């Protein structure tokens, strides 16, 4: 594939366009890396440790000092703490409450509650709450003033 890199005048103007006949796994990986979701985290599934791509994570929850990672239809445990995962996973992930991190790219829509919280519906149909204190962070990440 022919690759061209042009210098942009600011970070806001940075963009990447891929012209491909078919979207292969390599292209998906490249897109994940460009979007900042190329990171992987070790999780435990039935006694085995495997690496889970950030792009497949829907949300992460901490319950009784254990951290659980949820994908579209599976749940895994990880030894990482939430604050560590926040650093590893990058910009697409948002702390939405004291015990939860959500992948913003997996949110289908949000609904404002009267007590200033947001109820978020994920792509797999699950609903979770974005606490009042973290709504500002979401707006900042999305560039909503």
């Amino acid at each position: 594939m022919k690759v061209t890199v042009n210098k942009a005048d600011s970070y806001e103007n940075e963009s990447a366009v891929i012209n491909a006949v078919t979207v292969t796994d390599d292209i998906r990986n490249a897109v994940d890396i460009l979007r900042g979701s190329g990171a992987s985290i070790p999780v435990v599934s039935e006694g085995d440790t495997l690496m889970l791509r950030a792009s497949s994570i829907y949300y992460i929850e901490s319950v009784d000092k254990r951290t659980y990672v949820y994908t579209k239809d599976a749940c895994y445990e990880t030894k990482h703490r939430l604050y560590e995962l926040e650093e590893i996973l990058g910009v697409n992930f948002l702390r939405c409450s004291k015990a939860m991190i959500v992948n913003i790219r997996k949110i289908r829509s949000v609904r404002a509650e009267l007590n200033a919280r947001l109820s978020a519906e994920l792509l797999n149909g699950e609903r979770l709450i974005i606490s009042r204190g973290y709504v500002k962070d979401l707006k900042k990440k999305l560039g909503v003033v």
Partner: protein
Amino acid sequence: MNKAKLIFNHTLMISTAILFGLGVRTAVLFFATGSYMINWEWYIPLSIIAVGFLCSLASLLLYDDPATSRANMRVRICLHFLLVLAVVSISGCFFGWYSDLAGYLLILIMYILIYAFVWISTVWMLRTDEKKINEAINEIRDEE
């Protein structure tokens, strides 16, 4: 936003709303009678801030995080309305904001109008934010 900041902000907002209400009241009385003078006791301005503070404590009822369901929130709003009304009524009587039933009814009408205005504004702002956030999410959302 922590609770102290919430109480501080609400104290300022409610005190301003009370001043606005009193302003409207005096304007109505002026235009109704042709002449109206305010003669405030020394403690009236402080009483407005004190009532603002007491009413802001009731706001904790609304913004306490464990409430999840919409039904629960509606009950909390009703309780909040009654609690703030009780604070305004008792404080108004104590500080001499009204002296007869007609005066109290005027306070009551002002309270209902301000309460409704605050909630309509709040819902409008929440819906505006909701729309903006959903538009931004649509731009970056993964395919299902």
